[in-house]
C-alpha cells in the first residue's frame, strides 16, 4: 500500500511530514492496510464534518442579519391590486349613488337613483337581495350622503323636502361551521321618510353622521339655499327607546352648497361649496350653532394662468373624522385639519398634500381602520395614499373611462371601481404596511390633533381611530442620550483608572484590582438596573445636594490629600512605597462620600429652601425620579470594566524600551505617560471607548428599570428616556405577529444591530492596526 490509496480515500494532511511518516509506517506493517484505509476515511470524514459544521455556524450567524432584514423589507413595499371581475352594476339601470362592501367581502351593496338597494356577490355580481327605499309616489331622490364608513349609515334627500336615513347591515351566522353573511337594511328611526325642510323644498345636499352615544345629526341644504341641521337624540330607558327630533336653521353661506360633512364628535359641520371654499360651523350645541370661518381649500391659479379657478370635486373625512382630504378639479389632493392657531382659535389648516392626479379627482374614500384612502380621477387612474406616512402607495391607470367611485372594503383588501358606463370593477388589494416611510420614521410628522409637526412614538392604540405614531427619533435620541451620559461618567473614570493601574500601580495591587474589575463586567445588568431603580434613584432624589457636592469635593479632596501627603516628612512617607496611592486614598474617598451624604440635608436647607427637587421645578427644569443621571451612573458602571480592561491592556503592552528611554532622558513619569505612553496606546484607548459605546447603546435592562421609559426627545439630564432596546423589550410582547408595529420593532433591532456592529468593527480594525504597530516597534 502506498500513498496513492491514501489519497483516493481522503486528502493527505497538509503537513509535509505526514507522507514520509506514513510511507515508513506502511512498509513496516503491511497487514495493517485495512486500518490505514479506515484511518484515511476517518481523516476525510473529520475534515468534512468540521468543515461543514464550521461553515454552517458562520452562515447561521450571518443569518441573524439576513432574517432581521427580511422581516423589515415588507414595510417599504408598495401596494398592489389584482383585478378579479368586471360586470354591469347589479340591480336597476338607474345611476349608482353609492357602493360598499362588508368585512368578509362576500356581500356588496349598491344604492341607485331610483331608490333601489341591491345586495350582490362582489366576485360575480350575482344579486343576493333587492329592496326599495320607502320613497313616496312621484318623489325623486335629489341628494345622497354617507356617514363615516364604519357606521354604514347613509341618508337620501328627496324632492319633497323629506329624507330617509338607513343602514346597510348584515347578520353573521355559522350554520355547519361555515360563515354565512345575510345582508339587510336597518332603519334607525322609522322606515318612512322624515321631514327635513318645513317648506317642502327639494333637498339638494345632505350630510349625516352618527355619534358615539347613538345621536344622529343630519345637515341638509335646499334648492333655495337654506341650511338646516336636524338632530335625533336617542334615550334608552329600561322599557323603550325614545327618539326626539329637533331642527335648527343655520346662517347659510351665500354660495351654492354641494357638500355637507359632520364630524363624529358631533361638534363640527363642514360645508363645501361650488367655488372651492369650505365653511366651518361649530355645532356642538345646535341651538346656538356658530359659523366660524370660510377657507379656500383648493389653490387658485396664478393671475396669468388661463381658465377658471379649480373647484372642489370631492372631499371626505379620513377615519375618525379628524382630518379631511380634498380633491380638486386640478387633480390636487390636500389634507386639512382644524388646528388651534396662536390665538387658540381652531382654523382649517392644510397639513400636507399628496402627489396630484393629472385629471380632476372624482372620488376619495377612506379606509375603515387606518388613515389611508383611495382616490380616482376622470381619466380612469386610481391612487392609494396614506396620510401619516405621506406615501402614495399605488398610482395606476385602471380603467379607460371616468371612474365615478372608488371604494375600499373594511379591511382595505378589496376595491370597487364604478366607471361612467355603470360597470363595476372588483379588485383585491394588498397593502399591508402603508404606515411607514422614511419620512414617518425619521422626520417630523403633523399628526392628527397636534398643533405642529412633531417627533412622537405612540404605538399602542386605545381606539380604532387612533393614529399610530412611529417616529424612531425619540427612541434613537433616548438611546444616544443614555449612552452619552453613561460615557460621560464612565470614560474618565475608566481611562484614568486604567492609566494608573497599568503604569503606576504596584504589581501586587494590580493582581487584585484587575480581576475585580473584570468580574464587575460579568455582573448581570439586571442587578445594576434594579439597584439603580429601587435604591439609587430614590437615594439621589433625597440627596441631590450630595451628588453635586461629591462631584466638586471629590477631586479637590483627593488633590488636597495628595498635597498634604507630599508635605509629610519623607521618612514617614517612605513606609508606604509609591504605587500604593490608590490604597491610601480609599479611606479618604469613603470619608468624603460619607461627609457629602451627611451634609446633604444641611446644604439643602441652606441653599435650596429644603427641597432641591422643588427648586429644580421652580427654575423650570423637569425632574423625574428615574432620570438620565441615574441611568448614566448605572450604565456607566456597566461600561467602566469594558473600557478599563481594554485600555489597561493597551497601555500595559506599550513596549517597555520606549518608556525606559523617555525616563532615562530625564522625563518625569507623568511626562512619559502623557507624551509617550498615551500617544502610543491611543488607538487602543479609542477602540476601548468605541466598544464601551457599543455596549451602552445596546444595554436594555438598566434603562428599562432605571428610567420611566417615556419617549421624550430632549437631553435634559433630570428627565428619563426610552431607548430602542428598552422599547423592544416593553412592546414586543404585545404586537401582532407580522403587523406593522412588529416589523417596526424588527427595524429598530436592525438599527441597533447596525449601530453596534459599526462601533465594534471600527474598534476591532483600530485594535488590529495597533497590534501590528507594536509588533514593528
Amino acid at each position, binding site marked *: 500500500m502506498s500513498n496513492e490509496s491514501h489519497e483516493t480515500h481522503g486528502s493527505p*494532511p497538509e*503537513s509535509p*511530514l505526514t507522507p514520509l*511518516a*506514513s510511507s515508513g509506517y506502511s512498509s513496516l506493517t503491511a497487514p495493517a492496510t485495512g486500518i490505514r484505509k479506515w484511518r484515511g476515511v476517518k*481523516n476525510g470524514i473529520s475534515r468534512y464534518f*468540521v468543515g461543514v*459544521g*464550521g*461553515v454552517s*455556524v458562520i452562515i447561521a450567524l450571518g443569518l*441573524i442579519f439576513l*432574517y*432581521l432584514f427580511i422581516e423589515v423589507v415588507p414595510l417599504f413595499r408598495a401596494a398592489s391590486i389584482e383585478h378579479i371581475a368586471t360586470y354591469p352594476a347589479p340591480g336597476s339601470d338607474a345611476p349608482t349613488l353609492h357602493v360598499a362592501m362588508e368585512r368578509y367581502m362576500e356581500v356588496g351593496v349598491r344604492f341607485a337613483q331610483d331608490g333601489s338597494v341591491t345586495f350582490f356577490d362582489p366576485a360575480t355580481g350575482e344579486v343576493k337581495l333587492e329592496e326599495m327605499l320607502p320613497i313616496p309616489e312621484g318623489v325623486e331622490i335629489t341628494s345622497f350622503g354617507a356617514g363615516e364608513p364604519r357606521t354604514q349609515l347613509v341618508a337620501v334627500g328627496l324632492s319633497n323636502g323629506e329624507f330617509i336615513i338607513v343602514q346597510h347591515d348584515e347578520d353573521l351566522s355559522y350554520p355547519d361551521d361555515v360563515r354565512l353573511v345575510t345582508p339587510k337594511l336597518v332603519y334607525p328611526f322609522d322606515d318612512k321618510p322624515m321631514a327635513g325642510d318645513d317648506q317642502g323644498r327639494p333637498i339638494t345636499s345632505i350630510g349625516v353622521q352618527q355619534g358615539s352615544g347613538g345621536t344622529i345629526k343630519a345637515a341638509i341644504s335646499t334648492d333655495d339655499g337654506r341650511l338646516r341641521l336636524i338632530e335625533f337624540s336617542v334615550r334608552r330607558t329600561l322599557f323603550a327607546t325614545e327618539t326626539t327630533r329637533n331642527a335648527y336653521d343655520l346662517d347659510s353661506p351665500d354660495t351654492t352648497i354641494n357638500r355637507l360633512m359632520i364630524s363624529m364628535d358631533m361638534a363640527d359641520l363642514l360645508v363645501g361649496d361650488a367655488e372651492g371654499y369650505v365653511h366651518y360651523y361649530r355645532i356642538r350645541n345646535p341651538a346656538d350653532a356658530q359659523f366660524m370661518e370660510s377657507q379656500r381649500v383648493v389653490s387658485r391659479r396664478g393671475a396669468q394662468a388661463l381658465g377658471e379657478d379649480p373647484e372642489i370635486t370631492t372631499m371626505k373625512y379620513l377615519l375618525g373624522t379628524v382630518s379631511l382630504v380634498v380633491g380638486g378639479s386640478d387633480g390636487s389632493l390636500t389634507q386639512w385639519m382644524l388646528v388651534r392657531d396662536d390665538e387658540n382659535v381652531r382654523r382649517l389648516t392644510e397639513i400636507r398634500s399628496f402627489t396630484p392626479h393629472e385629471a380632476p379627482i372624482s372620488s376619495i374614500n377612506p379606509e375603515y381602520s387606518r388613515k389611508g384612502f383611495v382616490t380616482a380621477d376622470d381619466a380612469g387612474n386610481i391612487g392609494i395614499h396614506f396620510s401619516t406616512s405621506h406615501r402614495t402607495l399605488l398610482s395606476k391607470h385602471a380603467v379607460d373611462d371616468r371612474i365615478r367611485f372608488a371604494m375600499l372594503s373594511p379591511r382595505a383588501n378589496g376595491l370597487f371601481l364604478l366607471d361612467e358606463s355603470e360597470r363595476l370593477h372588483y379588485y383585491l388589494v394588498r397593502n399591508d404596511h402603508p404606515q411607514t416611510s422614511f419620512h414617518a420614521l425619521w422626520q417630523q410628522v403633523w399628526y392628527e390633533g397636534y398643533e405642529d409637526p412633531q417627533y412622537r412614538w405612540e404605538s399602542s392604540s386605545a381606539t380604532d381611530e387612533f393614529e399610530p405614531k412611529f417616529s424612531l427619533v425619540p427612541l434613537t435620541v433616548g438611546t444616544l442620550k443614555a449612552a452619552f451620559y453613561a460615557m460621560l461618567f464612565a470614560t474618565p473614570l475608566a481611562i*484614568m483608572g486604567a492609566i*494608573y493601574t497599568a503604569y*503606576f*500601580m504596584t504589581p501586587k495591587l494590580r493582581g487584585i*484590582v484587575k*480581576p475585580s*474589575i473584570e*468580574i464587575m463586567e*460579568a*455582573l*448581570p445588568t*439586571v*442587578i445594576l438596573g*434594579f*439597584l439603580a431603580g*429601587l435604591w439609587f434613584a430614590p437615594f439621589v432624589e433625597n440627596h441631590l445636594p450630595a451628588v453635586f457636592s461629591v462631584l466638586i469635593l471629590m*477631586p479637590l479632596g*483627593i*488633590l488636597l490629600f495628595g*498635597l498634604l*501627603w507630599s508635605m509629610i516628612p519623607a521618612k514617614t512617607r517612605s513606609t508606604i512605597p509609591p504605587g500604593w496611592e490608590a490604597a491610601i*486614598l*480609599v479611606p479618604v*474617598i*469613603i470619608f468624603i462620600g460619607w461627609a457629602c451624604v*451627611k451634609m446633604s*440635608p444641611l446644604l439643602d*436647607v441652606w441653599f435650596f*429652601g429644603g*427641597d432641591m427637587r422643588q427648586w429644580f421645578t421652580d427654575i423650570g427644569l423637569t425632574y423625574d425620579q428615574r432620570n438620565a443621571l441615574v441611568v448614566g451612573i448605572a450604565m456607566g458602571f456597566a461600561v467602566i470594566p469594558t473600557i478599563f480592561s481594554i485600555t489597561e491592556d493597551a497601555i500595559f503592552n506599550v513596549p517597555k524600551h520606549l518608556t525606559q528611554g523617555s525616563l532615562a532622558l530625564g522625563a518625569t513619569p507623568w511626562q512619559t505617560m502623557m507624551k509617550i505612553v498615551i500617544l502610543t496606546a491611543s488607538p487602543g484607548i479609542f477602540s476601548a471607548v468605541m*466598544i464601551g459605546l*457599543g455596549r451602552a*447603546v445596546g444595554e*436594555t*435592562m438598566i434603562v*428599562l428599570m432605571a428610567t420611566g421609559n417615556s419617549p421624550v426627545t430632549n437631553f435634559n439630564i433630570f428627565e428619563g428616556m426610552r431607548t430602542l432596546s428598552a422599547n423592544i*423589550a416593553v412592546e*414586543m410582547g404585545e404586537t401582532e*405577529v407580522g403587523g406593522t408595529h412588529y416589523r417596526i420593532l424588527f427595524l429598530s433591532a436592525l438599527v441597533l*444591530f447596525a449601530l*453596534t456592529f459599526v*462601533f*465594534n*468593527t471600527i474598534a*476591532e*480594525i483600530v485594535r488590529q492596526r495597533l497590534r501590528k504597530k507594536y509588533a514593528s516597534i
Partner: protein
Amino acid sequence: MLKQWYKSGSPYIWLNAGAIAISMIMVVGLIGLIAVRGLSHFWPAAVIETTYTVPDEEPVRLLGTVRRSETVTATVVREAGFYVPEDQMIVTRHLLQLGNRDITSRDFAWYIGDHMGEWTYPENALVLERMTWGNFYGYLEAILEDGEVVAEGEAAWDELYERVARAVDLRQQILQIERYDIGGIAYQQEQIRLAQRRLELRGEDTPEAMAELEEQHAALQEEYEELDLHRNDLRRQMDRDSVRAETAEGRTVTIAMSDIVRAARPNVMSFGEKIGHYVDSFKEFVFDYPREANTEGGIFPAIFGTVLMVIVMSIIVTPVGVLAAIYLREYARQGPFTRLIRICVNNLAGVPSIVFGVFGLGFFVYFLGGAIDDQFFQAAQPAPTFGRPGLFWASLTLALLTLPVVIVATEEGLSRIPKSVREGSLALGATKAETIWRTVVPMAAPAMMTGLILAVARAAGEVAPLMLVGVVKLAPNLPMDGNFPYLHLDRSFMHLGFHIYDVGFQSPNVEAARPLVYATALTLVLIIIVLNLTAIAIRNRLREKFKSDSD
C-alpha cells in the same frame, strides 16, 4: 513648592489613583450592599413597641420592626404630609414594617423619630409569617384547638411552635399531593385527550380505540377523586388549630394555623434560635415555591429554570462552538477571509442581547416553532406547543448569543498549543484528524471549559432576550417533572434575572418584595462570580502550563 509639586505631575497621578480607588469602592460597595441587604432579610429582627404621638392627635401604639432610617430636610417631610414643628430643619424618620395588611392595610409606613416615644422590646411580641396577607405582628394570647383554648400565657409559646410544625407538615403533604399526584393525573388526562384528537385527525377514531382511551380517562378520574378525598381530609386536620393574638391597636384576632408558615418571638429568642430561624428561612428561600405574587416564599423554580436553561444551552453551544473554532483555526486557510470572519464573530459578541431576543422570537418561536407545530403537534392546535416562547427556544437563543464567547475562547486555546506538539504527532504518523482529536483538542480542553464557563456566566445573567423567548413571571409547572418525557422543552420557565425585574418593578407591593429581590440578586451574583472565578482560575493555570510546555 506648590508649583514644583504641580510640575512633578503628582496631582495627576493622585487623580488617576483616585479614579481606580473610586471604581474599586463602587464594585465592593455594590456587592456589599447586595450581600448585606440580601442576607439580613432572613434574620429575625427585633420587634419594637412604641407610642407615636403627633400633636393634636390621639397617641397610637406601634408594633413592628424598623426597616430603614434616614435623615432628610423638614420640607420634604412636610410635603409628604407629616407634621413637623415650624422651627425644625432636619428630621430623622423610620420606615416601620407593621404587617397586618389584612387589618390595617398599612404594612409599611414612615414615622417621624421625634414623635416616637421610648422604644421597648416586649417579650410576648409575636411575628407570624403567613400564607396570605404578609406578616402578622401582635401579642400572643392563646392557642385554640377546635375553638377551645388549650394553652395560654407562657405555655402557649411551646404549644404554638409544636402546632405550627404540625400544620407545616400537613401542608407539605397536601402540596405533595397537589403538585405531583394530581398534577400527574391532569397531565395524563391531557395526553389522552391529545391521543383522541390525533386519532380523529388521522381518521382512525374507531369506537373501540376511542372507548379504550375513554376507559383510561375514567380510571384516572377515579384515582383523582380518591386523592381529592385524601387531600380534603388533610385540609380538615390542618384547620383544627388556631392562634389568638392581640394587635398593637388592641384588637383580638384569631388566625388559623393552616395560614401560618413560621412563627417567631424575636425579642426573646437566643442567638442560637435566631440562627436556627435564619437557616430555616434561608432553606425555604432556596428550596420552596414563591407565594403571594412572588413577593414571599422561595425562588426554587427560578433557580431550577435558570440552571436547566443554562445546561440545555451548554449542550447546544459547546459542540457547535468548538467545531467552528477548530474549523477556523485548524482547517480554514488563514487569510483575509478568515480574518474577516474572526472580526465578525468578535463583533457578534458586542451585538445587543435584545437583538438576539428579537431574532429568537421571530425566527425560532414563530417561524420554526410554527412549522414544527404544523408538522407534529396538529392534535394540540390551535393551542401552540413549540410555536410559543419556551425553554428550548430560550436556550437556543442564548446559545447563539454565547457562541462567539465559546469560539473566541476555544480558538485562543488552540492557538496556544505549541506547534511542536502538532508536529510531533504528525511525525509519529498520525493523520491530521488524529492529531487534532487526540492531541490538540484534549490539550485545549481547559480553554474550551473556560469559554463554556464564561458563556454560562453570561447566559445566567442575561434577561432582556429571555423576556421575549420563554421566561414568565410564574410558571405553573417546572420544565422537568415525573411525567414522560420528563424534560418538557416546550414549557416556559422562571429565571432569576427576570424574577428580579418582575418582583422589583411589576409587583404591587414593592416595599414588601424589596428584601426578597435583594436576596435573589445576591443568589444570582454569587452564581456568576463563582463561575467567573472558576474560569479565571482555569485560564491562569492553563497559561502557566503551556508556558512551561513550550520552554
